[in-house]
């Protein structure tokens, strides 16, 4: 992969540039006093220099992106990450118990488990342990649908 930036590496650098620009703009808009910008501005400048360095180094083929995982592997990672994102957002919407039960079940199936009865059984037991054990230690109220 030497001599060019991969799509995911470009996405990462673009994300860093975007986040840095937004944080810097927001901090400058809030106050231009030295004490407010004492970390933001120097760090943003360093990040800008580093992005240029990394891009230049990759384009000149000095730093390769190494061996990239296969397309199927990448898609599998993104699918599980997507399910995880939906699960995290759904926790307080549908209840911690149901969201956990469904996510763990789907996650096991995505992992390649062929048996039909074991994933939901494991998921139900795991959810029960989480709700009654881990959840009981939390000092906050947790929305549940069943328990």
């Amino acid at each position: 992969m030497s001599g060019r930036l991969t799509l995911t590496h470009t996405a990462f650098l673009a994300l860093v540039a975007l986040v840095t620009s937004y944080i810097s703009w927001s901090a400058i808009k809030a106050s231009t006093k030295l004490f407010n910008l004492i970390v933001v501005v120097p760090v943003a400048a360093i990040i800008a220099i580093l992005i240029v360095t990394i891009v230049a180094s990759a384009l000149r083929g000095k730093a390769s992106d190494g061996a990239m995982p296969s397309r199927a592997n990448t898609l599998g990672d993104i699918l599980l990450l997507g399910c995880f994102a939906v699960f995290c957002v759904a926790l307080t919407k549908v209840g911690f118990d149901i969201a956990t039960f469904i996510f763990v079940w789907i996650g096991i199936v995505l992992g390649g488990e062929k048996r039909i009865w074991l994933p939901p059984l494991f998921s139900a037991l795991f959810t029960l342990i989480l709700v009654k054990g881990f959840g009981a230690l939390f000092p906050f109220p947790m929305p549940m649908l069943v328990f």
Partner: protein
Amino acid sequence: MLDTIAFSQAMDMLFSGFGPWLYVIPGLLIGLVFGAVPGLQISMAMAVFLPVTFAMDFLQAMLFLTAIFTGGAYGGGVTAILMNIPGSSSSVATAFDGYPMARQGKHNEALGLGLGASVVGAFIGYILLLFLIEPLAGLVLKLGPLEMVMVVLWGLTLIATLNDSTVAKGLMAGALGLILSQVGMSTTGVLRTRIGNPYLIDGIAVVPAMIGIFAASELLRLRGNTYLVEAEGARNISFGRILSGMFETFRYPGVLLRGSLIGAVIGAIPGVGSSVANLVAYGEVRRSSKNRDKFGTGVPEGVVAAESANSSSEGGSMTALLALGIPGGAATAVLLAAFSFHNLVGGPAFIRDERDLIYAIIVGNLGQVVLLAVIGLLTLRLLGMVVKVPLTYLVPSVLALCAWGGFGITGTIAGPVTVVCFAGLGWLMRRHDYPVAATVIGLLLGRMTEGELVRTMQISGGNPLAYMVERPIAILFLVLLVLITIFIPLWRLYRKRREAAENPS
């Protein structure tokens, strides 16, 4: 250095009855559980159990709470080793070599090493406290905000430059953490970068971010494998191998001593605590090691340095609490609350008037360390079973646990959402060899850096360079910082050229 009359009175307080020791074992077990479960913090455990100490006398209360502290410091390392999930921020560096060891099937040895280093580190920390409480308190007062800025930058540069990736990528990861730490209200009270979201007023929640970037992103990477430890024979939990790992700790006396000393000194600095101690000790031991290139691939010295430092920092943080009345971190802040329950105030007057009580607390903690070795050995067998679970089941289960842990820290949806955002970020970073640890450290220390920089500017009247000339400790750290930044890239370049010359093909 040691007031023998007060010391003998302390021994009498501790050993004339079973009372002071009554709550030590429950305290250690609570600490181990809270430390080992991601999302449950040691300080949270201490705060939850603080009301229980109403019914205890002062010494019992202190021993109970410090037992939670001691158990928690080690418990955080267990999940860091087995699942790459630091149970608390003080175990971040433990995962760097502990987890690769576990992946190689050396989880028993890694757990033993961690336990041995924790026991020895905590022991050294408290021995230092026993003899050096008064001079250490004086030294701590000499460290001002400028020195703190230098310590933070030194630690961050060490971690950012000493990794398997390029220096540019290491620095980029550290700088990304620093810029993300600037979200929310500034240390001077300016509200910035909230994206209209009230959850971001206090900034990004560091522990959920850490869970996401370390654990969740690693779980995504593990997805294609069958077990955490691929070789079937290596998955066994062996009491003998844990024990031999524990004794292996003593094969690295220099690392143990250096990690413990760094931990005790950094722990003694108010507001810094075990998270920085753990990282700085790891970075320093790696920098000075002959095997520095192998760090991060499962080197025992890495586990020993990280665990000895976070455990010895407990003794250090007690220095600031007892001698100055200033809590070094959240856990010692809870201890300070226990002081007030019993109408006591830490500080120079406390050292002068209640020396017997101070010695009793210190010796009691030394006793706890011995008990930790026993309790730790007995519980590790149970905790180590995780390597026997197939990854098909482990990955979604631990991912769910990560999200729950994120909620446990914040009490709102912001926790799980932070976990998933940083899981995605960590996944991208790992794909392209950016060291995620440097980002976490930047995020952890960014706020502190900003506060200390502002204070430095205020104290120096806007002229920090003139002020620095009067601060020899700060100059020393600056010199180290410059040396690291210049020499490490040069050293890498030299090594690469030498390798190319040796292997022209």
